C-alpha cells in the first residue's frame, strides 16, 4: 500500500479550528536561512517580488534625479556625456524591465491564488525560481556599474550604435545577457499564471465569474509568452554580431539595422501593454469596492483588456515612422495606433460610470485611483497625438514622447500600484497604512508627476530632442527644464512618504482584520495576513463577488465559504476544468525546495560565463544545471507522479 491514495473522493468539511491546525502543520515552511532560501509560498514570494521591484524603482528614480540635476539648466557639466548616456540608458532599462512588470508580477503572485480560491500557484517551485532569476538578473545588470561598463546605447539599444564597432566594451553584453535572463523569468512566470488561472480556480468559479484582475494577468501572460522571444532573439543575434562576426545587422555585408528595430518593437510595443494592463485590472478590481458597487460593464472591460493586447501586436511600426516606410505602412499602423484608444476608452468609461453611480469612499487608495484617471487620460491623449504620423514626424524623439511615456508608465502603472498598495497592504501585513501620511503622499505624488511631466509636452512642442546631456541656452527650454526638475524631486518626496508610511505602519499601523474595506472577493474571506494554506476549506462559488452576495436581495444561491473541500491529506489543492471550474483532480503541492534557488544561481553563472566566453565554465555549469533540473523533475511518489506499485 503506497503512502498516497492515487484516486480519492475529496471530502467536504466545515472550516474548524482542528482543520486549521492540521493544515497549518502541513503547510508551514522550513525555518531559518534554509527556509528563507527554499520557500515556495506564493505570499512570501509575492512580497519579495514587490519589495525587489520597488528597490529597482528607487534605483531608477535616483538615476533620473541625477539626470534632472544635470538638465535643470543649460550647458551644465555635472555629468559628462558618457555618464549621462549611461544614466538615461540604465534608467529606462531598469524602470521598463526590472520595475514595471515585476511589480505587477508580485501583486499577481500574491493575489491570484487568493482571489481564485486556491492554496498556491500551480507550480510553486517554478514560482520561486522565477523570483530568484529576476533578482539575479537585476544584480547581473547592476554589476555593470562595478566594472564601469554600464549599458549606454539607450534602452532600445539601436544598432549600429550598439554594435561592436561602436561600443566594443561589455556595456551592451551586460544588457543583452541580463535581458535574456530576465526574459526566462518573465516567460516562466507567465506560464505559471496561465496554468494557475485556467486550472486552479475554486469550483463554481466559471470563466465569467473570474475576477477582473485575473483577466488582466491572464491576458498579459499570453502576451508575454508570444512576444518575449522576439527581444531575447534580438539580443542573442546582437551578441552573435558583436562577438562572433555574424551579419544580421551589419549593412556593409548584407544585414540590416532595421531588423533590430523590428524584432525589438514587435516585443516592445506589446510589452508596454503588458506592463499596464494588469495595473489597470487592479484598478478595476479595487475601485468598485471603494465605490460600493460592482464594476460597470465587467464583460466589456474584460473583452477590452484582451482586445487591447491583441491590437497591441499591430502597432509596433509606430516606433519607426521616421525610418523611411512606404505610405501604406504608415497609414495602416497610424490607423491601428489611433484605434487602439477605443478599448482603453472602454475601461475609462467603466471606471467613470462606476464612480458616478456608486458611493465613493475617499480613502488614500481611492484617491490614487481617482488621480490615476487624470494621468491616464493625459497619457492616452499624448499617445493619440503621436499616433498620427505627420504629428509624430515632429514629436518623435522629443520630450513630448518623454512626457507621454512617463504619463503612461507612472500614470498607468505606478499610480494603480500605489493604490493597490494602500488597498492590499492590510491583507499582506494585517495592518492598515496610515491615512494621513497616505493623503499627503498622494497629493505630493500627484503634484510631482504633473509638475515634472506636463511641461515636457511643451518642451517637445518647442523642439527639445530626447537623450541629450545638455542643451543650448537660447532655445526657450531653460525655465521649463527647471520646473521639470523641481517636479521630479516633488514626485520623489511623495514616493518617499509612502515608503515611510509602510515602514511605520508595519510596526504601529492599526490592526486590519480580514476585510477592512468590506470587499467582494475571496481574498477578503481569509485572515490578514493569510495563513500559509490560504483557505482552510476550498470554497464553492456561486457568483462573481462571493462576499457581496449578502447584499443581493434577489439572490437564492450563495457561495459556500465555510463549508468546502478540506484537502488535508498532505499539501493539496484542487484543480478544476477550464471553463466551468468543475473539480477535476487533487493536486499535490511540493514542499519547500532549494532547487529553484540553486538552479537560478547556476543559470546566472552560466550567463556570466557565456558573456565572458569562459567555455569550460559554461560546460561545467551547464552539467551542474542539468543535474539540478533532473533532480527537480524526478518523479516523486509524494507528488503522485509515479505508479502506485513502485517498490
Amino acid at each position, binding site marked *: 500500500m503506497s503512502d498516497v491514495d492515487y484516486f480519492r473522493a475529496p471530502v467536504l468539511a466545515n472550516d474548524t479550528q482542528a482543520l486549521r491546525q492540521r493544515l497549518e502543520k502541513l503547510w508551514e515552511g522550513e525555518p531559518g536561512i534554509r527556509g528563507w532560501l527554499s520557500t515556495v509560498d506564493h505570499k512570501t514570494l509575492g512580497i519579495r517580488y514587490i519589495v525587489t521591484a520597488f528597490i529597482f524603482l528607487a534605483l531608477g528614480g535616483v538615476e533620473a534625479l541625477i539626470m534632472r540635476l544635470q538638465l535643470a539648466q543649460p550647458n551644465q557639466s555635472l555629468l559628462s556625456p558618457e555618464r549621462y548616456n549611461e544614466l538615461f540608458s540604465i534608467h529606462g532599462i531598469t524602470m521598463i524591465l526590472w520595475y514595471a512588470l515585476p511589480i505587477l508580477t508580485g501583486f499577481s503572485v500574491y493575489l491570484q491564488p487568493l482571489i481564485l480560491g486556491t492554496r498556491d500557484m500551480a507550480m510553486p517551485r517554478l514560482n520561486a525560481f522565477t523570483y530568484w532569476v529576476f533578482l539575479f538578473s537585476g544584480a547581473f545588470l547592476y554589476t555593470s556599474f562595478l566594472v564601469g561598463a554600464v549599458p549606454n546605447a539607450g534602452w532600445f539599444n539601436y544598432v549600429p550604435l550598439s554594435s561592436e564597432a561602436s561600443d566594443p566594451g561589455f556595456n551592451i553584453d551586460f544588457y543583452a545577457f541580463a535581458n535574456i535572463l530576465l526574459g526566462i523569468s518573465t516567460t516562466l512566470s507567465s506560464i505559471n499564471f496561465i496554468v494557475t488561472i485556467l486550472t486552479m480556480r475554486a469550483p463554481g468559479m466559471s470563466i465569467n465569474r473570474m475576477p477582473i484582475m485575473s483577466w488582466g494577468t491572464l491576458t498579459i501572460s499570453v502576451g508575454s509568452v508570444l512576444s518575449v522571444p522576439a527581444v531575447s532573439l534580438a539580443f542573442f543575434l546582437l551578441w552573435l554580431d558583436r562577438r562572433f562576426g555574424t551579419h544580421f545587422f551589419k549593412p556593409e555585408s548584407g544585414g540590416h539595422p532595421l531588423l533590430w528595430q523590428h524584432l525589438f518593437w514587435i516585443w516592445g510595443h506589446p510589452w508596454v501593454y503588458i506592463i499596464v494592463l494588469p495595473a489597470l485590472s487592479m484598478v478595476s478590481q479595487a475601485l468598485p469596492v471603494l465605490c460600493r458597487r460592482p464594476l460597470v460593464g465587467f464583460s466589456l472591460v474584460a473583452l477590452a483588456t484582451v482586445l487591447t493586447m491583441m491590437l497591441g501586436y499591430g502597432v509596433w511600426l509606430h516606433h519607426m515612422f521616421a525610418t523611411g516606410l512606404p505610405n501604406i505602412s504608415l497609414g495602416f499602423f497610424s490607423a491601428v495606433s489611433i484605434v487602439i484608444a477605443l478599448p482603453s476608452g472602454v475601461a475609462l468609461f467603466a471606471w467613470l460610470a462606476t464612480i458616478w453611480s456608486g458611493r465613493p469612499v475617499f480613502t488614500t487608495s481611492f484617491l490614487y485611483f481617482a488621480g490615476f484617471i487624470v494621468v491616464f487620460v493625459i497619457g492616452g491623449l499624448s499617445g493619440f497625438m503621436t499616433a498620427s504620423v505627420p504629428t509624430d514626424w515632429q514629436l518623435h524623439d522629443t520630450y513630448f514622447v518623454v512626457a507621454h511615456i512617463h504619463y503612461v508608465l507612472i500614470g498607468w502603472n505606478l499610480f494603480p500600484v500605489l493604490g493597490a498598495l494602500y488597498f492590499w497592504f492590510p491583507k499582506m501585513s494585517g495592518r492598515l497604512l496610515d491615512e494621513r501620511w497616505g493623503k499627503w503622499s498622494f497629493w505630493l505624488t500627484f503634484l510631482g508627476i504633473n509638475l515634472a511631466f506636463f511641461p515636457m509636452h511643451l518642451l517637445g512642442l518647442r523642439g527639445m530632442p530626447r537623450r541629450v546631456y545638455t542643451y543650448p541656452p537660447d532655445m526657450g527650454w531653460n525655465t521649463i527644464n527647471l520646473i521639470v526638475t523641481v517636479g521630479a524631486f516633488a514626485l520623489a518626496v511623495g514616493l518617499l512618504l509612502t515608503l515611510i508610511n509602510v515602514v511605520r505602519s508595519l510596526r504601529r499601523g492599526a490592526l486590519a482584520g480580514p476585510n477592512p474595506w468590506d470587499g467582494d472577493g475571496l481574498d477578503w474571506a481569509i485572515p490578514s495576513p493569510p495563513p500559509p494554506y490560504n483557505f482552510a476549506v476550498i470554497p464553492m462559488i456561486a457568483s462573481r463577488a462571493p462576499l457581496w452576495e449578502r447584499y443581493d436581495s434577489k439572490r437564492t444561491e450563495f457561495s459556500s465559504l465555510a463549508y468546502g473541500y478540506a484537502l488535508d491529506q498532505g499539501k493539496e489543492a484542487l484543480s478544476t476544468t477550464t471553463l466551468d471550474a468543475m473539480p477535476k483532480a487533487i493536486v499535490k503541492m511540493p514542499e519547500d525546495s532549494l532547487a529553484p534557488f540553486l538552479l537560478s544561481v547556476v543559470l546566472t553563472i552560466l550567463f556570466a560565463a557565456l558573456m565572458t566566453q569562459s567555455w569550460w565554465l559554461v560546460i561545467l555549469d551547464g552539467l551542474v544545471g542539468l543535474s539540478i533540473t533532473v533532480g527537480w523533475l524526478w518523479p516523486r511518489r509524494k507528488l503522485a507522479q*509515479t505508479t502506485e506499485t513502485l517498490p
Partner: protein
Amino acid sequence: MTTQRVVIGAEKLPVGSIGASAPGWWGIIAGIVTEAALFGYLLFSYVYLAAQPHTGAWPPELPSLSLAAPNTIILLLSSVAVWIGERAVRQNRPRTQLVGLSVGALLGLVFVGVQIVEWKSKPFTLASGPYGSLFFTITGFHMAHVIAGLLMLATLTAWSYRKYFDETRHAAISIGAVYWHFVDAVWLVVFFTLYLTPYMSA
C-alpha cells in the same frame, strides 16, 4: 424565498499528475507556444534579410537536399517511434514503451550526427555573410532544441526502465513526447523555408 449554499460534489478524483490535469502538461504546451514564437521570429529574420536588395544570389547556392531530406525522414520516424512509445505506456505495454522511447532517442541522435556532417559540408560559415549567419543560427537553434529533447528522452527512457510509469501515471512521458513532436514540426517548417523555398523561386 429559499436560499441555499451551492454544493459542488465530486466523484473520485485523480490525485496528482494525470494527463491534462498535470500542471506540467499545460506548462509544456505554453512552452511550445513560446518556442514556436521564437522560431517564428527567426524565420521572420530570414525572410526580412532575404527580401533586402542583394549583390549576389540568395541563397548563394541552392541548398543540397541529399543529406537534409533523408534526415527529415529520420526525424519524422523518430517522432513515430516516440508516439508508439507513449501510446504503449497508455496501453500498459512496458517493453514497447522502452523500445519506442529509446529508438526515438537513437534516431534523434542520428539526426544530430547527420546534420553535423551536413554543416561541415557547407561552403559558407556562420560569419561568411547574412545567409550563413541565418542558416547556422536557425538550424543551430533547432539543433539545441533537438539536444534538449534527446536529454528528455534519455531521462524518460531511464525512468521507464525503473518502472516509474504505468497506464495512469505517465504525465512526464506525454509531456516529453509532445515536446519531441513539436521539435519535429518545427523542423518541417524550417526545412521548408530554408531548403525548399529556394527551389520554388529558382
